[in-house]
């Protein structure tokens, strides 16, 4: 049986999520700010002509006012929960899917009859819109790369009404020459520049390129892209979730950090989060890595450094993880810099059940574990950071992330449920 891939991609996902419980925002300009409220990371169509992706928030203040733009901080609790709902809608109609990112999934449409595929895609789109409230577009093709191209066309050209089918080689021959090569999956700006030099401008040009040439120009993935554009599938669906190899808690600061006590608070707080995550996934750390650096983009003096350490006994005990992370941070710290970011990463994980007890352990592990679990429970029910260890600093410390415009977590918290008027 021939392979048929679908790619369903949510339109302006973060913006669409913000609109689900805010009917007043339909048709009005909306932007979502990136981590730390620094830049415009997602824009609704209404505002795209005025605000570019990544524009710093302070630079667009006037436009926001003039165009009456509604501004949101990123609300990952909401986006994650609606993404999960979209996935279950997809699974209600298609047995095998690959969740490729928070807002797009590949679908295995090979098991459906040839003539059913397009109507199915249209119904899927309608169902996601009706059940979850998120608009989508679907691309259909014999390879993943072509499905991506099809999705691009479905999004950009209204005549397809949200579904573009590139299964027919005749249709591909007509359409690929209208797609700029930079829009092809995996072709970055650097590759596009190299390709332009040898006269490759469109997806059709790339499909016609000798695969060996493509490989010489862009390594093995380049050659694979050529085959995929010709309709020869090289990338199967990846159904298994990759096993959790590491946990990273890294964040930019709300304001530059210039003193060690502040940095220590930040490291302790990120290490606390990492330990909490480990307990949630029932894993324990074997190796911890801590880094910090100054801003690379302004004119601050540059400093960047990282250090890692191995634990003799794997652990997900907040006290131990924090202590080690802070000791590592101490070694990295240099006075006189304006630090913009730090991070705590657990680079080696083991299931917590196969913990190797050290010979001379003096900690009452069981008791401590009960205490951490109790803390996790409190934080889960009453909100993150309700209970913190003292070293993690106050809840409103200057270095903490800014998220001043976050919408309510409509779907994940009892006290933030949407309210409906009955008056």
């Amino acid at each position, binding site marked *: 049986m021939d392979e048929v891939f679908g790619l369903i991609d949510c339109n302006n996902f973060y913006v669409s999520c913000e609109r689900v*419980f805010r*009917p*007043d925002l*339909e048709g009005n300009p909306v932007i979502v700010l990136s981590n730390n409220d620094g830049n415009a990371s997602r824009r609704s169509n209404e505002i795209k002509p005025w605000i570019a992706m990544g524009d710093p928030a302070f630079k667009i203040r006037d436009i926001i006012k003039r165009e009456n733009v509604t501004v949101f901080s990123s609300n990952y609790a909401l986006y994650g929960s609606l993404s999960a*709902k979209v996935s*279950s*809608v997809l699974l*209600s109609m298609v047995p095998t899917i690959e969740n490729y990112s928070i807002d797009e999934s590949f679908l295995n449409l090979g098991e459906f009859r040839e003539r059913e595929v397009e109507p199915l895609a249209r119904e899927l789109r309608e*169902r996601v819109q*009706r*059940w*979850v*409230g998120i608009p989508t577009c679907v691309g259909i093709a014999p390879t993943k790369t072509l499905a991506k191209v099809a999705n691009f066309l479905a999004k950009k050209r209204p005549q397809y009404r949200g579904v573009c089918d590139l299964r027919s080689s005749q249709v591909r021959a007509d359409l690929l020459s209208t797609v700029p090569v930079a829009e092809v999956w995996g072709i970055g700006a650097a590759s596009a520049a190299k390709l332009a030099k040898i006269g490759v401008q469109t997806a059709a040009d790339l499909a016609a390129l000798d695969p060996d040439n493509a490989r010489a120009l862009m390594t093995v993935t380049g050659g694979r892209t050529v085959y995929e554009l010709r309709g020869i599938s090289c990338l199967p669906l990846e159904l298994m979730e990759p096993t959790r190899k590491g946990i990273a808690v890294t964040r930019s600061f709300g304001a530059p950090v210039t003193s060690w006590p502040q940095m220590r608070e930040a490291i302790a707080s990120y290490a606390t989060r990492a330990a909490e995550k480990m307990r949630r996934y029932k894993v324990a750390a074997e190796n911890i890595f801590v880094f910090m650096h100054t801003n690379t983009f302004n004119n601050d003096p540059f400093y960047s450094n990282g250090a890692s350490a191995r634990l003799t006994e794997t652990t997900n005990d907040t006290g131990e993880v924090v202590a080690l992370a802070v000791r590592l941070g101490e070694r990295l710290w240099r006075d006189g810099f304006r630090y913009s970011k730090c991070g705590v990463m657990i680079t080696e994980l083991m299931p917590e059940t196969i913990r190797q007890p050290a010979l001379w352990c003096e900690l009452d592990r069981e008791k401590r574990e009960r205490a951490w679990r109790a803390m996790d*429970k409190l934080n*889960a*029910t009453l909100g993150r950071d309700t209970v913190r260890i003292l070293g993690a600093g106050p809840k409103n410390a200057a270095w903490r992330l800014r998220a001043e415009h976050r919408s309510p977590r*409509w*779907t994940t918290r009892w006290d933030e*449920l*949407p*309210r*409906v*008027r*009955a*008056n």
Partner: protein
Amino acid sequence: MSLELVDWAADWPMVLPYFDGTVPAGFPSPAEDYLGTPLDLHDFLIENKAATFLMRVDGDSMKDAGILDGDLLVVDRAAHPENGCVVIVALIGEYTVKRLRCGRDCVWLEPANPLYKAVRVSLGEDLHVFGVVKHAIHTLR
């Protein structure tokens, strides 16, 4: 007969043990033999998990329909809004709970409280229905 008070934690799974058959009082624990599949309130409240959202009521305009101020609503977006059912609709940029009534060339959005007026929406006018209200959960205080 005596009542035993138990602690209730918010994150307990919504399951209740189900005993198939009668359990005679005073008989030494015959229940194990009859323990059936535990009941899960989700099965009763939620027909379609992917399409279900929870919302909170503000106001008393639906009180005669059994929907009181502060009640929790279980809203199904997959259900088809039919004549007579209670729906969540967008009115003037806000979500409102109303009963849907089909007229000849219009639909009426009816409150369930004589103090409030129905809203008429002509055919052809844009009506955004968020979802159909399946249950109102009312907590006794």
